C-alpha cells in the first residue's frame, strides 16, 4: 500500500513524543515500578527487554491496548488441574467446609476481636496454614487453582479468619516461597506450614501507604558485613501481634558498582521476633475484619543476620510488588466465595419472606437485584479461576489481569453485600443475620493490597507502556521504511481501518459458542473502540499521560469492563467443563455482562466515526437534529427590569454555553500537532480528542445550545 495512503499513515504515526518511557516521569510509585527506568540499579528488568517482552506479551489486557486480540490466555477457558489434582481438591473441600460450618464461629470471632483459641488450634491442626507450602516442608503443596478453591470456602464463611490465613501465607511468607534460598526455606517453612509460627508482611508505614517506595524504615549494614541493624516503624500490620516471622521492607544503602556512589534502595528482610527489639502495639479497633489482629510494629536496633536478606540487596521493591501480585488472584477467589454466601442468604430470605400475598422473589424488583448479584459473582469467580489457571500454566504476564480481578472483585462484593442487605430489609441490618458483619468486613478489600485507585492507574499505565513500546517499534521501523514495509503496512492499515470504523479484523466469533455471538460482537466493538481511544490518548499526551489521572481512571474502567466481557464469553463456551455445561443462566449472564459496557462505550452508536462535523455524524433517530426555537424573549420593556438608562446594561442573556470554561483546559496542544491531510476521504478532518471543544464529538444527549 504505497502512495498517498502510506504517506498519510506515516504522518499520523511520526509524531511520537520524544523521551517517552526513557526517563523518570512517574507520579505514582506503582507506575515507577513498571515503567522502564534508565540509569538506575534496581533489580527490575533492563529497559529494552521490558519493552520487547511487553510487545510479545500474550496477556489479553496488554493486547487490548495494542489493538490486538491476544486470545491465548483467555480462550478456551483454561483448565489446569489433572484428574488427580481435582480428586485431591474434592477431598479437601469437604473437611474444610465442615470445619467452617461446625467449628468456626464468625460472630464470636468478631465480638472477641480475635479468632477463638479453639478455632485457631483447629485451623492449625487442619493444615490450613500451609496450603501452598511444598510437601517436603510439611505443607499441602497446592497449586494456585486448588488454593483459590479453598480460599473461596474460607471467604464464604469468615473473612476475618480469611485475612488471618491470607496475611500469613498469601503475603506473609510468600516472599520466602518466591525468593527464598534453600537454607532460608528449610529453616522457616516447616514451622510456618504447621502454623507453629505465624508470618506477617510489613510494608506500610505512617508516612507510606500507596507510596510504598517512600518508606523510612532503615537497615544499616554492620562494618563486618555479617548483620544489619533495622530501625523503624510499621503500622496496620495484619497478624502483627501473633507473628513470629516478619517480611520487613527497609531502605538500605546500595553501592552502584559503576559509579561507586551509594543510593538508598529497598531491601526485603526475614526478621524473627526472637532477634530482639521487635515490639508490637495494641490491636487496632477496626470497622471490619475485627477477628484479624492488626497492630503497629516497632523495630528498635534489631539485628538481622545478613543471610536473612530476601531477594537480593536492593531488590525489595520488586519483591513487594511480586508478592502482592502473586496474591491477588486469592483476593478475587475469596470475594467470589463471599458473594456466593451472600447470594445464598439473599435467596433464602427472598424465597421465604411473604409480603403483599406472595413470596418476594416473585417481584421484579427483587429478581433484578438477585440477577445483578449473580452476574457480579459469576464474573468474579470466572476471573479468579482464569487467572489462577494462567499462573499455574506458567503464563508469565498476568499482572494487569490480576489487578483487574482485585478491583472488580472487591467492588462487586461490596455491591452484592449492599444489595443483600437491601433484599433482606430490616433483617439484613440486624447483627443476628451476619450480613452486616460481612459488609463491614468487605470494606477493607477495596483499600488494602493496593487501593483500587492505585491499581486502576497501574492497569492503565502498564497497558500504555506496552502501547508506547509498540509505537516506538513502529517509529524504529519508520527509520527504515523500505526495509519494514510489512510492519508499516500492517500497522497503518489497521489504524486506518479502525479510524474509518471498518474494524481492524479482530474477531471473537470463532472463539465463542454460537449462542454468544451477540456478546462476542459487542466485545469486538469495545476492543476496537478501546484501542483507538488508548492510542489517541497516548499520542495526545505523550509522556505526560502519567499525570492525566482523570483519563487513566476511565481507561482502566474500560479495560476492566472489556476483560470482564472476554472472561464471561470464555467460560460458558469452554468444553472443558462438561459437567457444568452451558446453562441458559450463563448465556444470559454473558449477555448482561457484555451489554452494559458496550452501551457505556457508545457501541450502540455503531461505527466509531468520531467526526466533529455533525453533517456526517450518524443521526440517532431519537435525537432531534434541530432544537426548536425558543419562544422566550428577553422582556425589553418589562417594568422593573433594568433599562438602558440604568448602569447595568440589559444583558441579552448571561447564560453562555460553557464551551471552554476558563481555567479548565487541560494541556495546550503543542505547536507541532500533526496536521491532518485535508481532503483525504478516509481520514477524519480533525483529530478526535482535541482540547478545543468545538471539535470535541458532541454527545448525543447533551444539547449543543440551550433551548
Amino acid at each position, binding site marked *: 500500500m504505497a502512495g498517498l495512503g502510506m504517506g498519510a499513515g506515516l504522518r499520523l504515526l511520526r509524531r511520537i513524543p520524544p523521551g517517552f518511557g526513557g526517563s523518570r516521569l512517574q507520579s505514582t510509585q506503582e507506575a515507577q515500578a513498571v515503567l522502564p527506568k534508565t540509569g538506575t540499579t534496581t533489580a527490575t528488568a533492563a529497559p529494552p527487554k521490558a519493552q520487547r517482552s511487553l510487545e510479545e506479551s500474550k496477556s489479553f489486557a496488554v493486547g487490548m491496548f495494542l489493538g490486538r486480540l491476544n486470545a491465548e490466555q483467555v480462550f478456551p477457558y483454561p483448565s489446569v488441574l489433572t484428574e488427580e489434582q481435582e480428586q485431591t481438591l474434592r477431598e479437601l473441600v469437604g*473437611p474444610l467446609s465442615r470445619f467452617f460450618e461446625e467449628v468456626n464461629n464468625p460472630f464470636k470471632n468478631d465480638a472477641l476481636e480475635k479468632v477463638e483459641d479453639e478455632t485457631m488450634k483447629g485451623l492449625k491442626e487442619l*493444615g490450613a496454614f500451609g496450603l501452598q507450602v511444598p510437601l517436603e516442608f510439611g505443607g499441602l503443596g497446592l497449586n494456585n487453582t486448588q488454593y483459590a478453591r479453598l480460599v473461596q470456602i474460607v471467604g464464604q464463611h469468615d473473612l476475618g479468619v480469611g485475612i488471618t490465613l491470607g496475611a500469613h501465607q498469601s503475603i506473609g511468607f510468600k516472599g520466602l516461597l518466591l525468593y527464598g534460598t534453600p537454607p532460608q526455606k528449610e529453616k522457616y517453612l516447616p514451622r510456618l506450614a504447621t502454623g507453629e509460627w505465624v508470618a506477617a508482611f510489613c510494608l506500610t508505614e505512617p508516612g507510606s501507604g500507596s507510596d510504598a517506595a517512600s518508606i523510612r524504615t532503615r537497615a544499616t549494614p554492620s562494618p563486618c558485613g555479617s548483620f544489619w541493624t533495622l530501625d523503624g516503624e510499621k503500622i496496620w500490620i495484619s497478624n502483627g501481634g501473633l507473628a513470629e516471622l516478619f517480611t520487613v521492607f527497609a531502605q538500605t544503602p546500595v553501592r552502584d558498582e559503576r559509579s561507586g556512589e551509594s543510593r538508598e534502595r529497598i531491601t526485603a528482610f526475614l526478621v524473627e521476633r526472637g532477634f530482639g527489639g521487635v515490639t508490637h502495639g495494641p490491636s487496632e479497633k477496626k470497622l471490619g475484619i475485627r477477628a484479624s489482629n492488626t497492630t503497629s510494629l516497632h523495630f528498635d536496633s534489631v539485628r538481622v543476620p545478613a543471610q536473612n536478606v530476601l531477594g537480593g540487596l536492593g531488590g525489595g521493591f520488586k519483591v513487594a510488588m511480586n508478592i502482592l501480585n502473586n496474591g491477588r488472584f486469592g483476593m478475587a477467589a475469596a470475594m467470589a466465595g463471599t458473594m456466593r454466601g451472600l447470594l445464598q442468604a439473599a435467596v433464602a430470605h427472598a424465597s421465604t419472606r411473604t409480603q403483599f400475598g406472595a413470596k418476594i422473589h416473585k417481584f421484579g424488583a427483587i429478581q433484578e437485584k438477585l440477577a445483578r448479584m449473580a452476574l457480579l459473582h459469576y464474573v468474579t469467580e470466572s476471573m479468579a479461576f482464569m487467572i489462577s489457571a494462567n499462573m499455574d500454566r506458567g503464563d508469565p504476564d498476568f499482572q494487569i489481569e490480576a489487578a483487574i480481578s482485585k478491583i472488580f472483585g472487591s467492588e462487586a462484593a461490596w455491591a452484592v453485600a449492599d444489595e443483600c442487605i437491601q433484599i433482606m430489609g430490616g433483617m439484613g441490618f440486624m447483627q443476628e443475620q451476619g450480613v452486616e458483619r460481612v459488609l463491614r468486613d468487605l470494606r477493607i478489600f477495596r483499600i488494602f493490597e493496593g487501593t483500587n485507585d492505585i491499581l486502576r492507574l497501574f492497569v492503565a499505565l502498564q497497558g500504555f507502556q506496552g502501547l508506547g513500546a509498540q509505537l516506538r517499534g513502529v517509529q524504529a521501523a519508520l527509520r527504515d521504511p523500505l526495509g519494514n514495509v510489512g510492519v508499516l503496512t500492517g500497522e497503518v492499515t489497521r489504524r486506518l481501518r479502525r479510524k474509518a470504523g471498518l474494524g481492524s479484523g479482530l474477531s471473537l466469533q470463532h472463539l465463542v459458542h454460537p449462542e454468544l455471538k451477540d456478546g462476542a460482537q459487542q466485545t469486538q466493538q469495545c476492543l476496537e473502540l478501546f484501542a483507538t481511544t488508548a492510542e489517541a490518548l497516548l499520542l495526545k499526551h505523550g509522556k505526560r499521560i502519567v499525570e492525566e489521572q482523570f483519563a487513566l481512571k476511565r481507561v482502566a474502567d474500560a479495560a476492566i469492563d472489556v476483560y470482564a466481557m472476554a472472561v464471561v464469553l470464555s467460560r460458558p463456551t469452554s468444553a472443558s467443563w462438561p459437567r457444568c455445561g452451558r446453562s441458559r443462566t450463563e448465556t444470559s449472564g454473558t449477555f448482561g455482562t457484555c451489554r452494559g459496557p458496550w452501551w457505556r462505550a457508545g457501541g450502540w452508536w455503531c461505527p466509531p466515526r468520531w467526526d466533529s462535523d455533525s453533517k456526517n455524524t450518524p443521526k440517532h433517530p431519537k435525537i432531534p437534529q434541530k432544537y426548536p426555537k425558543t419562544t422566550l424573549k428577553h422582556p425589553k420593556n418589562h417594568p422593573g427590569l433594568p433599562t438602558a438608562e440604568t448602569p447595568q446594561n440589559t444583558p441579552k442573556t448571561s447564560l453562555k454555553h460553557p464551551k471552554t470554561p476558563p481555567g479548565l483546559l487541560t494541556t495546550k496542544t503543542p505547536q507541532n500537532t500533526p496536521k491532518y491531510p485535508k481532503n483525504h476521504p478516509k481520514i477524519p478532518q480533525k483529530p478526535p480528542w482535541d482540547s478545543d471543544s468545538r471539535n470535541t464529538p458532541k454527545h448525543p444527549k447533551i444539547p449543543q445550545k440551550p433551548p
Partner: protein
Amino acid sequence: MAALRVLVGVKRVIDFAVKVRVAPGGAAVQTQGVKHSLNPFCEIALEEAVRLREAGAAAEVVVATLGTKASQETLRTALAMGADRAVLAELAEGAAAGPREVAVALAALARRLQPQLVLLGKQAIDDDCNQTGQILAAILDWPQGTFASRVSLEPGAVQVQREVDGGLETLRLRLPAVLTADLRLNEPRYATLPNIMKAKKKPLEVVPAADLGVPAGPPRLRLLQLQEPPPRAGGEKVESVESLLGKLRHAGRI
C-alpha cells in the same frame, strides 16, 4: 505390644444432611448426583480403631468395604482419618450388597487378614438393618459385642460396655471378636488436610467381590415399592374430649 490387627468395615452411604428423594420409578432412592459420605457409625468404629492403635493396644488398622468403584473415595477418607491400609471388595454396578453379602465378604477378608478384632458400625443410616455385625460373628463363630459404648482391650480379651434397652451391660469377650459401635463410643476426629495428602500414599487394594465368595445371584430381598410419606395435612382443633373421640371414631382410628 501385641501384633494386634483391627479390621474395620465401613459403608458409603448418602450423606446424613441430604434430603432423600425417591427415584423416578418408585423402586429406589435417588442416588445419582447426591452427596455420599462415610456412614457415621462406621466413622465411630474407625475412630475407635485408630485410638486403639495410637494407644499402642493395636498395631495395624485395616479398613474394608464392599461396594462399587465410587467407594474408593470413602476409603480414602478413612485412610485420612488414620487407617493404615484399605481393601475394596469391588462389586459390579447394581449388584446386591445387603448385610448377608457384606458379612460374607468381611468373613473372607477376616480369614485372610487374621485380625484379632473386627469393628463395625452398629447400622447403616440408609437401610438401618443392624444385621451385618451379628451375621458376621455367626459366620466366623466369634463372640460379638454389639452397641458398644466403651471398649477396652486386655491381653487375649476385650471388655465391652453395651447399651441395651435396660441400661448398660458389660461383657468380657475372648479375642478374636466382632464389635459394633454405638453413638456414644467416641467423637470422630476431623480428617486434617495434611492427612488427606498422606492418605494418597497409603495402599488401597481392590479385590473382586466374587473372589471373596460373595454370592453373585439375585438379592434375596426385593424392594417392592418405595414412596415418600404423604405430606402432612393440616390439623384440627376440637373443643372437648367427646368431640375428639367422635372425630377419631369417624375417621376410623378407634
